């Protein structure tokens, strides 16, 4: 598995999250006339989800390293132990 495909998968996860958070039925939970700090709740919710998505993208594109494309270590250690 290459680094690019790892990033693709993780970003696809963010896409699914975004699609769910921005749509019915989650959206309907916040579609009420309530104010938080004087700002309509729905408006605030949209901004926060949007910002969250951006932060997640930043996190994934910056933090994903070549290490993540390798299989996790226990099996490797086991192999080394055997020989």
């Amino acid at each position: 598995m290459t680094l690019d495909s790892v990033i693709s998968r993780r970003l696809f996860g963010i896409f699914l999250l975004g699609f769910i958070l921005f749509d019915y039925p989650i959206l309907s939970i916040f579609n009420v006339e309530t104010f938080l700090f004087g700002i309509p709740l729905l408006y605030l919710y949209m901004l926060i989800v949007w910002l969250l998505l951006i932060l997640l993208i930043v996190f994934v594109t910056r933090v994903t390293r070549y290490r993540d494309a390798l299989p996790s270590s226990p099996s490797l250690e086991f192999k080394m132990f055997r020989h």
Partner: protein
Amino acid sequence: MLSTETILFFSFGYIGLLFAIAYIGDRHAKIGLSLVSNPYIYALSLAVYCTAWTFYGSVGLAATSGLGFLPTYIGPTLVATLGWLVLRKIIRISKVHRITSIADFIASRYGKSTTLGSVVTIIAVLGIIPYISLQLKAISTSYQVVTGYPLINVPRHFTQIPFYYDTAFYIALILAVFTILFGTRSLVATERHEGLVAAIAFESMVKLIAFLAVGIFVTYGIYNGFADIFDQARAMPELRRLFTIEIQTGTYASWCIHIFLSMMAFMCLPRQFQVTVVENVNEDHLKKAVWLFPLYLLAINFFVLPIAFGGVLHFGAGSFDADTFVLTLPMARHKESLTLLVFIGGISAATGMVIVATIALSTMICNDLAMPVLLRIPSLQLAERDDLAGILLGIRRGSIVLVLMFGYAYFHFIGEYYSLVSIGLVSFAAVAQFSPAILGGIFWKSATKSGAISGLIAGFIVWIYTLVLPSLVQAGFIGPDFVNQGPFNIGWLNPFALFGLQDFDHVAHAVFWSLLCNTLIYIGVSLYSRPSAIEHTQATLFVDVYHYAGETEGSSFWRGTASVGDLRSLVVRFLGQERTEEELATYSNKYATGWEDDRQADAGLVNYVEKLLAGTIGSASARVVVSKTVKEEPLSIDEVMNILDETRQVIAYSRELEKATAKLRAANERLKELDRLKDEFISTVTHELRTPLTSVRSIAEILNANPNVDHWQHQKFTTIIVKESERLTRLINQVLDFQKIETGRMDWQISEVDFKGVIQDALSSTSQLVSEKQIQIDQNIPVYVPTVAGDRDRLIQVMVNLISNAVKFCDDKDAHIAIGLSVVSDQLLVSVKDNGIGVSKKDREIIFQEFRQIKHNLKGRPPGSGLGLSITKRIVNFHGGRIWVESAQGKGSVFFFTLPLRKPDEIRQDSRLAEWETEQANGSA
């Protein structure tokens, strides 16, 4: 005082500045110092997505429907998360195939089809015209508003005035000139425009700054922050209902469809394709752009609601066209410079879109509509003419003017009745029709040309029926009954409620039906049609682009003959002498040298030339042109299948076969060797068994024949018998042990073992052997040694084997054996050193193999079965250790082995694996 002169001065000054930036950008590109080759410029150029629609229209929509403006920006944000999966693939494909437009992309994917290219171009042009008219409307309206300063009056009813009095007409003309100068200045029509990208990025900065400035001014200058605006808005019933999304049947579905629509549009808009794909310098820029661009969208949308609410609060509901609030609010407060900044920001937003969109469209019209037609008219002899670059530029310039004039006409007759956003959405719905063909094209190999064409045409027809025809009703070209009762009073054909579907708003309704028809027909026809050979090739090259990257030059589809001279002159006609030399030199460096000496061009060169031309005239036209030069021999479908699928499969298959053969050969060799060794073993063992047997028998016979031997003699004989039978037993035991270990039937008794004790036991059981040969034994053992897990008896056997082996090979005079024990990291290291003949390098592995004995030149075969070391090795391996020998010929040898320091249960788990491996090994042998 903001006079008309000042406004015109700043407008043209701003345009002059853009030219300067573009000029500098191009200059830098020419000397190889790219200004635009960084992710920030790339992200800013993507923001050409935000047009006058965003700048003026969002506020207009927010003033009437609250958060309804947001899906248009949520979509692209979501696409950004898919950027690495989808956009990167499109970019990679386009780079490999030198694709220059979305029509080119789709045409190339489905077998370089000119038909498909033209269909896409026609849809794109017709679809984008409303979008361009939107920009004209925005500029013209904002110009009218701002020249009225300080009075605020919003002009209406352009249809009544003749076009030569209409500002928008002149704006369209100026924009046409502007775009021609911008995009088609140079005579060489290249794929990328670095100067343009620099200017677009600058425009994106300007419109963002202008919008944020108004936002901050309205929120904190006119009102006291967000809370204040929302507080006042609460008191107004018209605004209060906008705090939430009004719930009706289908509201949420419409919302979802709008998000989906903007996602598709973001991927399929010709201008987005231009900046995202064609103008992309480096794929890696996408990595930063995927979060920078959503951040830009967030920033430019941040103040939309405050401005909209502020405007309604300030001017009262319904008094003004809310589309102009961004401009009229600073005017109402007499902020001259802010008004000017906003006006310039609006121009930025509109011109950026118009320039990139018309350049993209003109490329498509030229490459995918005009060229294929012109090339097919034999009397023109187009491919043979020398001034082709000039003709290309002429066509492009002409189409720029044409597109803008169409845009103006749409604005003049229809656009006026609609708000900015609703005009834009019509365009979105049109370009979204490309999405099945594109997404299917890059992920689904079985998609065919017929499928793509039928799907596109079906979607397009539904789009016209549900969005364009109703707009003609509004403009008065068609009677109102068409949308009220449906055509010919057939209710279920009503363009706003096809088949009685009434839950969605008009755009969502149109998008739903058109994309549904499009996708279903695309998939259905694809499944029931057969791809041609070239479609098959292109499908594979597109879908598996990462797999075939870099191979495309070699894997040629052409099988024909062309002379090198013909090809060269063909390229010169399109690219000019200088660039031709450059590109062909690149080919020489990269792929093959010496082709210039050949008379006939090889497939690689033909392919390269085709791609080179594709960068200038599009893949479909390039194919037509090249096929006129190359005398192509018809290639049957079967042959192409062979070339593409089978070759690769056969190669892979034969590799597998080779591997398997090699394995079999090795196994066979090993079997033969084992067979030989078994024979040898039997003769050795028989020999070894016979020796003690013979001596036992002969001594027994002596005793039998002479019953009266003296006591001392008797004692001596019986001792020999005992010793020889012991030797016999030992031999038989070894054979049995070996057999047990080999078949995995050994019963291991695992416990914690003190290895010092093991050594002592081994020494005492070999003491007789040692004292017989008068060997001195040195021990180098630390006081404290941690325990190991293992079978105590077997470990003793290991030591006994090694010691007796050492004894066997020790020098006859002055014999020394040294036993060492130490702990190295988590392992116990044991060594047994003798001063015998040593082991030669080539034998060091062999001695651990079963039935192997090293013959000594002088002494011949040593005594023993040849199983001792083999058993030793297996026991050590079972315990997870390793055994090896170090030696210098003639100076003795040292046998080392390691034992990991483990707990008994760890070894039990491991031993199951070892057994399994043994079974596997036996099975495969």
